[in-house]
C-alpha cells in the first residue's frame, strides 16, 4: 500500500480539526429524547445549555427539544416545476448528507470550501470556516402541498401518505397573511448560537437545491423567545416580556411524548416519532406598544414585566391563579390577558412546544421597525395550535399590537439513522 493518506470514516472536511466535545462524546448514544437529554446533561446544566454540537442522526430530529439556540435561519422551499419523485428523493439524500456534515462542524462535499480543484467553484461556500458547530441543528419538514397541490395534483405519488391533519391551517380572526410569506412544499429550520453558522447552513442547502427546489420565503431570527430546557433562562420577546415560561421542556418526557411527538397509530406510520411544525410571522406594532403605560402592558400579558410572575402573585414559575380577585372583585389576571387565553386549562389541556425568535427586518415605509416574533411551535397535532390560536385570535388583548402576516404548517418526519435520508419512510 502506498503512503498516501486516506481520510478516515469521518467524511467531509473538518472546519476546526476537532469535533465539538459533546457531539464526539455522544456519537454512540441512544435515540430521541434520551439523546437530547444526554446532550443537555453533558453540558453540565450551567444555565447556557449550549452543547457545541448535536448529532444529526437520531431517532427524533434535533432542533425540537434541543435547548433553543440563540439564532435562527428558517427557509421554506417550493419544488421546481418538473421535478420528479426520484429527484425529490435525491434532494433529500443530498440535504441529509450536507446537514450531517454541517451540524458536525464540517464543510460540505468531498473537498469543502478551499481544498478543491482550482478551476471549479468550491463545493462549500466557506463563510463558516474557522467557526465551531455552534450548536447547529437542521430540522426538515414537509408542507401540505408536497403531498397534493391546491388544485389536487399529486406530483410525487404521495397523496395517499398524507396525514389527514396536514391541511392548511384555518383562517383565524385578524389574519392578514401574505401569500409570499406563507406555506411551502419543504422547510428547513437552522438554529445555531452563531448567526453565520445558521446562514451558512441555509445558503448551502439552497444551493444544493437549485434546479430541484427554490426558496419561497425565509426568515432570520436574532434572539430566541422561549426556553425548551429547564437549564435555560427565560428570554424576552420584543414587547420586553419574558416569553415561554410555561413552555414544554425537554425534561418533561411524558409531556413531550404526549404533546410533541406523533405517536404510532396517530396517522401514517412514516410520521411516527415526528411532529408538526407551525410558523407564524407575527409583526408587532412596537411603536404603539412602547407608548402603552406599564399597568396596561402587564394587564395585557397577565404577568409582571420585570420578574415575569403571574399577576395573581408569586414568582416566574408560580402557576397563575385565574380565580384570584382584587378590588371590585375583578380578577387579578384580566379576562383578556394573554397568559389566561393561552393557558392549557383554557384550551382542552393542549400545550405547544414553542421555539420562536425575535426578528427585525429593517423598517417599513412609515419608518416603523419591521419587527416582531417569528413564532414556531412543535406539536403532536396541528389541532393543538389551532385551539390555542383560535382562543387568542378571538379575545387576546395583545391583538391590538400584533398582525399575523405569515403562516405555514409542516409535518416533521422522525430523525434519520446514519445511511438513510430524512423522511425515507415516506418514500419506501
Amino acid at each position, binding site marked *: 500500500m*502506498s*503512503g*498516501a*493518506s*486516506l*481520510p478516515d470514516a469521518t*467524511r*467531509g472536511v473538518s472546519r476546526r480539526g476537532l469535533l465539538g466535545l459533546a457531539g464526539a462524546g455522544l456519537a454512540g448514544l441512544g435515540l430521541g429524547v434520551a439523546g437530547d437529554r444526554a446532550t443537555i446533561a453533558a453540558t453540565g446544566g450551567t444555565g447556557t445549555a449550549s452543547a457545541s454540537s448535536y448529532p444529526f442522526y437520531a431517532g427524533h430530529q434535533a432542533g425540537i427539544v434541543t435547548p433553543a439556540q440563540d439564532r435562527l435561519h428558517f427557509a421554506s422551499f417550493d419544488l*421546481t*416545476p*418538473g421535478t420528479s419523485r426520484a429527484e425529490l428523493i*435525491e434532494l433529500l*439524500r*443530498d*440535504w*441529509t*448528507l*450536507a*446537514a*450531517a*456534515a454541517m451540524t458536525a462542524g464540517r464543510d*460540505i*462535499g*468531498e*473537498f469543502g470550501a*478551499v*481544498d*478543491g*480543484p*482550482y*478551476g*471549479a*467553484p468550491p*463545493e462549500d461556500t466557506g463563510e463558516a470556516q474557522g467557526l465551531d458547530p455552534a450548536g447547529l441543528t437542521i430540522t426538515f419538514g414537509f408542507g401540505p402541498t408536497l403531498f397534493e397541490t391546491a388544485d389536487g395534483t399529486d406530483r410525487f405519488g404521495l397523496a395517499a401518505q398524507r396525514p389527514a391533519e396536514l391541511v392548511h391551517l384555518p383562517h383565524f380572526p385578524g389574519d392578514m397573511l401574505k401569500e409570499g410569506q406563507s406555506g411551502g412544499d419543504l422547510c428547513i429550520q437552522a438554529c445555531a448560537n452563531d448567526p453565520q453558522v445558521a446562514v451558512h447552513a441555509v445558503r*448551502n*442547502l439552497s*444551493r*444544493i437545491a*437549485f*434546479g*430541484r427546489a*427554490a426558496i419561497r420565503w425565509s426568515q432570520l431570527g436574532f434572539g430566541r423567545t422561549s426556553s425548551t430546557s429547564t437549564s435555560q433562562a427565560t428570554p424576552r420577546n420584543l414587547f420586553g416580556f419574558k416569553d415561554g415560561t410555561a413552555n414544554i421542556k425537554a425534561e418533561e418526557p411524558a409531556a413531550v411524548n404526549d404533546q410533541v411527538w406523533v405517536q404510532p397509530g396517530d396517522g401514517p406510520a412514516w410520521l411516527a416519532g415526528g411532529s408538526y411544525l407551525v410558523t407564524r410571522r407575527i409583526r408587532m406594532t412596537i411603536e404603539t406598544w412602547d407608548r402603552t403605560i406599564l399597568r396596561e402592558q402587564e394587564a395585557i400579558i397577565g404577568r409582571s414585566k420585570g420578574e415575569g410572575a403571574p399577576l395573581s402573585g408569586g414568582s416566574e414559575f408560580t402557576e397563575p391563579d385565574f380565580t384570584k380577585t382584587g378590588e371590585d372583585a375583578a380578577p387579578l389576571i384580566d379576562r383578556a390577558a394573554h397568559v389566561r387565553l393561552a393557558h392549557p386549562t383554557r384550551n382542552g389541556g393542549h400545550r405547544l412546544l414553542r421555539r420562536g425568535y425575535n426578528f427585525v427586518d429593517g423598517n417599513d415605509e412609515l419608518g416603523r421597525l419591521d419587527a416582531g416574533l417569528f413564532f414556531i411551535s412543535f406539536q403532536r397535532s396541528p389541532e393543538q395550535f389551532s385551539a390555542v390560536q383560535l382562543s387568542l385570535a378571538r379575545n387576546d388583548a395583545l391583538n391590538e399590537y400584533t398582525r399575523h402576516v405569515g403562516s405555514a404548517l409542516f409535518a416533521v418526519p422522525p430523525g434519520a439513522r446514519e445511511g438513510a435520508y430524512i423522511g425515507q419512510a415516506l418514500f419506501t
Partner: protein
Amino acid sequence: MRARLALPTAACSAVLLALTGCVANGGGTDATHASLTVDSSATECAVSAAEAPAGTVRFRVTNSGDKVTEFYLLADDGLKIVGEAENIGPGLSRDLVVELEPGKYFTACKPGMTGDGVGKAAFTVTESGAAGEIDADLAARIDTANSGYAAYVRDVVAELATGTDAFAAAYVAGDDDLARSLYAPTRAHWERVETIAESFGDLDPKLDLREADLEEGQEWTGWHAIEKDLWRAEAEAGFQAYDAGKRAHLAGLLVADTQTLKGKVADLSFTLSQQTNGAIGLLEEVASGKVTGEEEFWSHTDLWDFQANVDGAKVLYAGVRDILVEKDPKLARQLDTEFGALQALLDEHRVDDGFALYTELSGADIRALADQVNALGEPLNRLTATLVIS
C-alpha cells in the same frame, strides 16, 4: 490524455455511486480520495508518497521557497503535462486535484517558473478499480471544437456589423420606428458573443456601457446611449432628445467600433477553457443583468438579450458536449436537461419574431426564469474543471 480534473459529480462513476451513495450537485457528496502533500522548496520537490491508488488524487502543494513556484504531474514520457498547479506564491498552498489511471507518472516543481525544474521523481498510480476509462484522441476533437467556435464568432460578428450599419442608417435618417424595430434583433448578435467582445478592453465600454456605469465626466457612447434617445418617453423628466449632430456622432462611433471588433475576431482561436468559461460567463451575464431587467433600461427588450446569451452558451456547450459525454455523462445529461428547461421557459414569452417586454412579465414569470438560471448555472460552472486539465 489519461487524466482529468475530478469533481464530485465527475467522480460519481457507476462504481462510486454504488459504494458511497455519491450524488449530484455537490451536496454532501463525500467520497474519499487519496491526499498527498508536496513541499516545493528552492531545491526540492518533496512528495509525501511515491504512489497512490487510482482514482481521485489530491496534491496539496506548499511553496516553502522564496520564489513563485509551479508543480507538475507529468505522463510517463516525462514531458506531457497531466496536471499542474501554477503561480503559487511563497508561503502559499494550492491543491491540484486530478483523477488518475494506473500507470507511471513523474512529479516535478519549478521554483522561479523557468528552467528545467527541480526534484523530478517517479510517481506510480496503482490499480484500485476506481478510475474511469478516459478515451484518448481528445486533442483532435478539442481542435474541432476550437475551430468551430472561432468560425461561429466570425459569422456572428459579421452579422452584427451588417445589422449595425442598417440600424445606424435608420437612426441618423430620423426613422425612429425602423431603428427601434432593428435595435433588439441587431443587439442579439452582440449578446451571443458578449464575452468575446468584453475581452477586448475598451471596446466593450465604448459599445455597451449602461448609463449607471458611467464615471464622472466620461462620454457615453454605444448602444444604450442611443437606446435612451430612441425610447425617450421612458427617460427621466427633462431628458433632452439628441440633435442631428449628436445622432450622427454616436451612430458613426457605433459603426466604427463594431468594425474594429470585426477586425479583431478575424483570426482568433480559442482554447478549451476559453470556450467553457465563455459559456459560464454568458450565463453569468444573464443572471446579473438580463433576468433583473437592468440591461435594457428603456427599451425593456431584455429577453432578446437573454435568449442571445443563452444561444451563445448553447453553441459553446454543443462544441464540447461530445468530450463531456465521455468524461462525465451525468453532467452532460444534467446540462442537456437544464438548457432544455430554460429554453422552454423562454419560449413561453415569445411574441411574433421576438419576445414580450420585460415590463410585461409577471413577478412569477421572472422568478421562474431566475430559478432556472440558477438551476443551469450550478452544473455549468463545473464544466471547465471537468473538461480542462488546469
